[in-house]
């Protein structure tokens, strides 16, 4: 169908797009090893010195700690809420099932500022002070969908006959859940949790509206970029954040055979 020249042109195009996607990421990693504190191309030489000074920076440490705490808490909450919803919905056909799926996707489908400002005005209306808890509530809200999508996709692929066989053989509901259902969905739970962690660890828009005086790592990066200060440290932190968000995603993709990385999982 496509002649030789069309194929060649398409191949070249594919290579160019790949370069477009990955050259910026490579640039970031190179700058992390920049010897100078001036961000200019080409970098003057390679050095590891900014890694040490970034690690010593108390602000970076505090932000990292807050990010990890927030992401862990939001992931745990999303794991419970998202899998509850998936177990409830997957085999019971009832009215409003699509509406419930829609409800969970909404925080990711609506522009981030809407979620951010809505939660912000909700917290101030109820006189909740902005703290790590308000950040966690915000993050949980948009992380539920990732767990939900992963678990429900797995449940749809598993066969109900396994559960029925267990019950025929005399297992009670708890035994069936522990020995049959849980092993079947366990990797999808882990995958969902990892995606939720990555999503939370990297979030900036909703966080700017729901955090008070605290800085998560992305907020710290945003502040430093905005003021143009401590850029050598930003290079290091940003490279670190790329790794922290990509590694869980790669693992979760392996666990679910690529299913976790579907676009429904969100950003």
């Amino acid at each position, binding site marked *: *169908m*496509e002649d030789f020249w069309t194929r060649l*042109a*398409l191949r070249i*195009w*594919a290579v160019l*797009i790949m370069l*477009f*996607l990955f050259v*910026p*990421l490579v*640039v*970031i990693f190179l700058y992390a090893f920049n010897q100078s504190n001036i*961000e200019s*191309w*080409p970098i003057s030489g390679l050095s590891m010195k900014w890694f040490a000074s970034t690690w010593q920076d108390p602000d970076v440490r505090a932000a990292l700690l807050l990010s990890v705490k927030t992401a862990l808490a939001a992931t745990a909450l999303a794991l*419970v*809420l*998202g899998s*509850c*919803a998936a177990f*409830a*919905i997957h*085999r019971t056909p*009832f009215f409003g099932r699509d509406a*419930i799926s829609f409800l*969970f996707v909404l*925080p990711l489908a*609506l*522009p981030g*500022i*809407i979620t951010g*400002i*809505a*939660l912000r*005005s909700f917290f101030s209306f109820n006189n909740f002070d902005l703290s790590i808890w308000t950040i966690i*509530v915000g993050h949980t*809200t948009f992380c*539920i969908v990732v767990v939900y999508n992963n678990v429900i996709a797995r449940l749809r692929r598993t066969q109900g006959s396994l559960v029925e066989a267990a*019950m025929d053989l*005399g297992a009670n*509901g708890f035994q069936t*859940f522990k020995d049959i259902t849980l092993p079947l969905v366990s990797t999808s739970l882990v995958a969902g949790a990892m995606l939720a962690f990555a999503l939370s660890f990297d979030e*900036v828009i909703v966080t700017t*509206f729901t955090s008070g005086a605290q800085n998560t790592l992305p907020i710290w*990066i*945003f502040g430093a*970029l*905005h003021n143009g200060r401590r850029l050598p440290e*930003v290079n290091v932190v*940003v*490279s670190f954040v*790329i790794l922290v*968000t990509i590694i869980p*995603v790669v693992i979760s*993709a392996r666990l679910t055979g*690529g299913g976790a*990385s579907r*676009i429904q999982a969100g*950003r």
Partner: protein
Amino acid sequence: MATETAGRPRPKGGVSGLRALMWRVPWLRAVLLLIPPVGWMLLVYIASLVLLLITAFWTIDTFTTQIVQSWNLDNFRIIVSDPTYLRIISRTVGIAAAVTVTDIVLAFPLAYYMARIASRRVQTLLFAAVLLPLWASYLARLYAWILILGHSGLLNWSVQLVGLPPPNIGYTVVAMWIVFSYIWLPFMIIPMYAALERVPESLLEASADLGARWWRTLREVVLPLVVPGIAAGSIFTFSLTLGDYITPILVGGGSSQFIGNVVYGNIGIANNVPFAAALSIVPVAIMAIYLLAAKRLGAFEAL
């Protein structure tokens, strides 16, 4: 776990009252499980959105900056009548549209290559390669472009290397357009690729058998079948650009405010939450219209 209505084994052994009840009323278990997650979403999220909508019709006392809960349309009147806000809205929508078109153009040949020409192995590899940047921190990818487009960045350096004058496009609307197109590109590639992969080979063969050249087959057979995928991708590229305010602050330069920036500004310094709420309804309304149009194009089946 007994939820199937037909041929369910009756729970054996000591059946507690609740479990027996759940067996008799299959949806009861679903409802009990749904209470925590749906309760969370309704109490936190939907309540917040409703409050936002209501706040938009309130106003603030200009002296005390306290919210006055009196119903009026003042905020919307200001948005519609002040040319500054109209300019910001049309800039936001304009760039969101430009980014969407750019991403369609960039993504289509790659998606076509992935779906129809690349070998199975290359296909999987490219798919993973497209997804990876999507998960690499948003701020990281944004920052990469600050470094590349800046005055002494990679772009100016390489253009000068070829002997041309440096383009100096850091901190302009053009920079914003490039960065948005870059960051949201994977969101366009994936649904487009999925749509292209579903185009049956037999249709293309039939078209070729009937004498259509490749270009004509592409235009009259492939493209119409890919429209739902394009529409699905464009929901992401359009919506995500529309709601962004970080990129305009960091790479847009002085005169590149987005709707989001005004919303953010009114939350922080001015503390005029009702006005911010009213303004934030603008992108929601635009997205609602956009989603309706996308639904007509079949975008939801392609997601």
